[in-house]
């Protein structure tokens, strides 16, 4: 099997690994210079004293407030509350969204009816559900989770639908001649084939859910990240507002980088989409 050996796959991973070190150094240097300059300018403008510090604090003050908030445990407790809410809301969206997307993607009658409804609702910013949610459920945990679900559900549904619709028919045919029937056809072929597209829907859904949660929490009185923003405003404390904003960015980016980015990288690599 000499020919066989010649056909052995190239060690693609090792090859790209070599180039990473040098190629990624330059962008990071540019980023550091950019942000360094940005913070320096901000610091100087704040120090110039054009606006009072409680309205326009220097970045050093904001960082101080952030360190203080985290140090006292307040920001971490608030972040924990928000993360729990988004976990519940996102899990619900995931369960409903995958099922709904599959149905809309595979059943024409549902695509023409339910599909256009989902498309329409996707155009509605999810915060718009908040007044209705409060009317129906009061200022409760359920109301805020409802808004989170409305934020994530339609993105996930449309992502799954797009993925399922674009499943190469060849895969389904191959699975059928190999004996796959009914539900197995969906769980073992249609869904995995659609996974790259589904993942981008999941990622977008997460972003929308996080935004909806923050908007919703602004109105709530219990401790949470959104609520801390509101408290900062009430106390005329722009430093706290900005510190909490930073905190929200940090949590958002962390989830994206630790959950979605690696997941997406793995799927793209395995599906051979990185070439």
């Amino acid at each position, binding site marked *: *099997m000499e*020919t*066989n050996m010649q*056909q052995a*796959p190239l060690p*693609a991973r090792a090859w790209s690994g070599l180039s990473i070190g040098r190629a990624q150094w330059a962008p990071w240097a540019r980023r550091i210079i950019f942000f360094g300059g940005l913070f320096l300018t901000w610091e100087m403008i704040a120090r110039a004293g054009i606006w009072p510090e409680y309205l326009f604090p220097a970045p050093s003050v904001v960082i101080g407030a952030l360190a203080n908030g985290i140090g006292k445990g307040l920001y971490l407790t608030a972040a924990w509350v928000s993360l729990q809410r988004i976990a519940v809301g996102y899990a619900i969206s995931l369960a409903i969204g995958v099922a709904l997307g599959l149905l809309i993607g595979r059943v024409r009658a549902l695509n023409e009816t339910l599909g256009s409804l989902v498309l329409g609702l996707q155009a509605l910013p999810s915060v718009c559900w908040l007044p209705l949610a409060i009317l129906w459920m009061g200022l409760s945990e359920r109301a805020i989770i409802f808004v989170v679900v409305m934020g994530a559900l339609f993105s996930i549904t449309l992502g799954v639908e797009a993925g399922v619709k674009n499943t*190469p028919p*060849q*895969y389904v*045919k*191959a*699975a*059928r*001649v*190999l*004996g*796959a*029937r009914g539900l*197995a056809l969906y769980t*073992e*072929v249609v869904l*995995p*084939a659609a*996974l790259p597209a589904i993942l981008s829907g999941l990622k977008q859904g997460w972003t929308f859910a996080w935004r909806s949660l923050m908007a919703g929490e602004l109105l709530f009185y219990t401790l949470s990240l959104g609520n801390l923003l509101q408290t900062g405003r009430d106390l005329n404390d722009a430093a706290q507002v900005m510190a909490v904003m930073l905190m929200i960015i940090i949590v958002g980016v962390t989830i994206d980088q630790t959950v979605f980015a690696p997941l997406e990288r793995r799927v793209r690599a*395995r*599906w*051979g989409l990185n*070439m």
Partner: protein
Amino acid sequence: MMTDVMTKTDAPILRLEGVSKTFNGQNGAVEALQPLSLDVRAGEFVCLLGPSGCGKSTLLNLIAGLERPTTGDVFANGRPVVGPGADRVLMFQDGALFPWLNVRANVEFGLRQTGLPKRERAGAAQRWIDAVHLTGFERSFVHELSGGMRQRVAIARALAIDPAILLMDEPFGALDAMTRDLMHRELESIWQSTRKTVLFVTHNVREAVALGDRVLVFAARPGRIVAEFRIDLPRPRSLEDHALVDQARRITAVLREAGANSNHSAARPGEPG
């Protein structure tokens, strides 16, 4: 007793009676395949040869049970074909391997559908992976394999469920000449050791002559069989063999004549097959 055995071996494993297919597209009905009848003996290697759009792929889809004929019936092992079945497996030009599964899981796919226990599944899969010379690549993913290796996996995956009939739709069409040559020899040896019935679609005359016991020549628009050749050359065959080259030349002449008679100006970019 004796007559029983005789009828069993003599009855065609595959019988097509007046099978035709018409697609209703946006530009009206397209006759992909004119009614045709065909018997295939068990263990026979039949090549379907013809240009794009001659309905040869459509025919494989009908036999696989992925599509229903507009008229006529397909019988496999004497039973009418109403859908896909484990006695007939279709292989595609691009292999249609599942990129989310590694080589072993791809080969096991059909066995998993039958509910075979894990241990037996793994054993059967390994035998076929070894048979197509991919030992050591069990855990590789599809994008890590060359075109030839992918087709080996596809062959292993198809044969793992032990079908009586193997339907191959231009399986080596995208391979380079050397790999293709190698795959011919391996397919021939697998066919000789398993005695499967093979229907092999190709537009390559020499490939058809090198592999087939019988070559059915198709013409396009509408798809139909215009000639049938029995190839009695000894195996294994060499592409350089004079007898083979002569045979290929005769078939090419028939193909060319059929092509001239077909209305190519009406050709659509998307072939119905």
